[in-house]
């Protein structure tokens, strides 16, 4: 079944740890995105990719980095987690050629940095 997956769903980690949030999609989409969302607030685009080996920073400055080595995989890495990184991280993809060009979102990773 075509879908978009994120792991882990929840992560509680100590300050200074390196973490990688995984995102994979099986829809063959070229475009993938990472958003950050705090409770009751809007989604902020932090990274996006329009295809393999293409990555760009979004509108919200983030200390995280991303890579796009395979079409289906778009992991996000934080080299040294801090409490200010505590948030919900949502991965999305688009570009299936449908009429709406909508974004399909994963379930999110809720990150808590102690």
């Amino acid at each position, binding site marked *: 079944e075509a879908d978009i997956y994120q792991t882990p769903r929840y992560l509680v980690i100590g300050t200074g740890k390196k973490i990688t949030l995984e995102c994979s999609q099986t829809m063959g989409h070229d475009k993938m995105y990472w958003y950050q969302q705090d409770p009751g607030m809007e*989604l902020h685009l932090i990274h996006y990719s329009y295809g393999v080996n293409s990555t760009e920073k979004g509108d919200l400055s983030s200390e995280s980095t991303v890579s796009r080595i395979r079409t289906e995989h778009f992991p996000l890495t934080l080299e040294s987690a801090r409490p200010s990184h505590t948030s919900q991280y949502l991965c999305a993809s688009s570009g299936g050629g449908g009429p*709406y060009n909508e974004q399909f*979102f994963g379930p*999110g990773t809720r990150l808590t940095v102690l």
Partner: protein
Amino acid sequence: SQKIEQNSEALNIQEGKTATLTCNYTNYSPAYLQWYRQDPGRGPVFLLLIRENEKEKRKERLKVTFDTTLKQSLFHITASQPADSATYLCALRGRDDKIIFGKGTRLHILP
């Protein structure tokens, strides 16, 4: 800077009535506007899209209007049901393909 405004307070609607949500934007000329639904702890789910040259779109119990002069979209849910309770996000997509999202409006349908 670009800005999207949605009803900041939660909207409580009696079951069976029509719920109307508002999205206003400034400093932007979107190619089209999308509405998404987001449930607690989940990612948003796409509902409807309306293009800049369209006035109205319908899908089952949903209706969206788009007034580019007023820079406003209205999102209607007719014959509302408790299962419609969620947060509804307005999103603008520009010609550069980037999307900006509003904060969303929390809708509660009261049985």
